[in-house]
């Protein structure tokens, strides 16, 4: 019997369109389900009742975790799991559990106030990166090279309206490049190194920076295995920093974009994701 899956998102982007196009060949019926009108909270919610699996592709950190939690509680199969999404959606919580599991991460501090910020500057020194605990795509991530500018920057953080937007993570600056690994199940389906393109120090794929494919580096493999052991198999974008002492985990995206690695490597990510979905459905 053909499996029916819901691609849960507020809209279809490049990745979701590829999934829908590749689904028939994988023997899957995939349809978009709007994450702003799921009506979850009971087992007869159509999103739960009418689908064999919910693939959570919400760009919204708020919606993705909540939808996964309720759908899972009501008996739906959900990818990624609610537990994995909740661990990844908060950069600080993720850092804490990775560090507790002895997976290498950059040195960091939680910044909830100007006092915290001052202490982080003293302890980590400049240059330092300040970024929101919730968020992604490089938004509001600031590189503080100059201690004179540091406190002026914090004026803008204080002006943000909500406490959750003011919660920040300060970390040591480790250079302008990162390695993005697209994990499907337990395997690294593609890996590419992103470098800032010169006009912006940030190296996020979402900011359109340069990338090149990487082979299967055993050191990368070891770190990624540790992350997957902790979160459980799933579909993740694992961002690593390369340092002279080895790779450090920057963050893990639970609804990763893959247009960047797809164009850098020969990998057909959409088909690989759908094969994994079939594997999960059994």
């Amino acid at each position, binding site marked *: 019997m053909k499996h029916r899956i819901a*691609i849960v*998102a*507020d*809209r*279809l982007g490049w990745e*979701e*369109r590829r999934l*829908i196009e590749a689904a028939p060949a994988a023997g899957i019926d995939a*349809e*978009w389900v*709007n994450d702003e009108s799921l009506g979850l909270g009971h087992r007869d919610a159509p999103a739960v009742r009418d689908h064999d699996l919910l693939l959570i592709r919400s*760009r*919204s*950190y*708020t919606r993705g975790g909540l939808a996964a939690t309720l759908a899972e509680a009501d008996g739906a199969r959900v990818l990624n799991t609610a537990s994995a999404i909740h661990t990844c959606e908060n950069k600080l919580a993720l850092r804490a559990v990775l560090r507790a599991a002895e997976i290498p991460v950059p040195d960091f501090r939680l910044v909830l106030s100007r006092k915290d910020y001052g202490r982080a500057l003293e302890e980590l020194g400049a240059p330092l990166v300040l970024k929101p605990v*919730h*968020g*992604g*795509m490089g*938004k509001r991530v600031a590189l503080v090279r100059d201690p004179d500018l540091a406190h002026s920057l914090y004026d803008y953080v204080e002006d943000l309206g909500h406490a959750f*937007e003011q919660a920040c993570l300060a970390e040591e600056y480790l250079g302008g490049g990162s390695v993005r690994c697209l994990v499907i199940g337990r395997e690294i389906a593609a890996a590419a190194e992103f470098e800032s393109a010169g006009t912006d120090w940030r190296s996020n794929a*979402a900011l359109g920076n340069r990338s090149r494919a990487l082979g299967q580096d055993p050191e990368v493999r070891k770190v990624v295995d540790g992350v997957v052991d902790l979160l459980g198999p799933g579909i993740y*974008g694992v961002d690593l920093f390369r340092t002279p002492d080895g790779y450090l985990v920057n963050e893990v*995206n639970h*609804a*990763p*974009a893959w247009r960047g690695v797809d164009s850098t490597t020969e990998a057909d990510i959409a088909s690989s994701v759908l094969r994994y979905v079939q594997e999960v459905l059994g």
Partner: protein
Amino acid sequence: MPATLTGTCPECETDLTVPPIVRGETLSCPECMLTLRVEDIDGERLDLEMVEVQLRDWGQ
């Protein structure tokens, strides 16, 4: 699927003709520049709804 689909911008009422597109995808109205999402497709006709360009808690 038809070679082109048509719809009307719900904000400025401009008639739009676009290449094949599926439910959930977005497009920009060339007249008023709003981001529109395809809610439904009936034959060659698009049902469009205005959406935020980007939510405050987006990340990937």
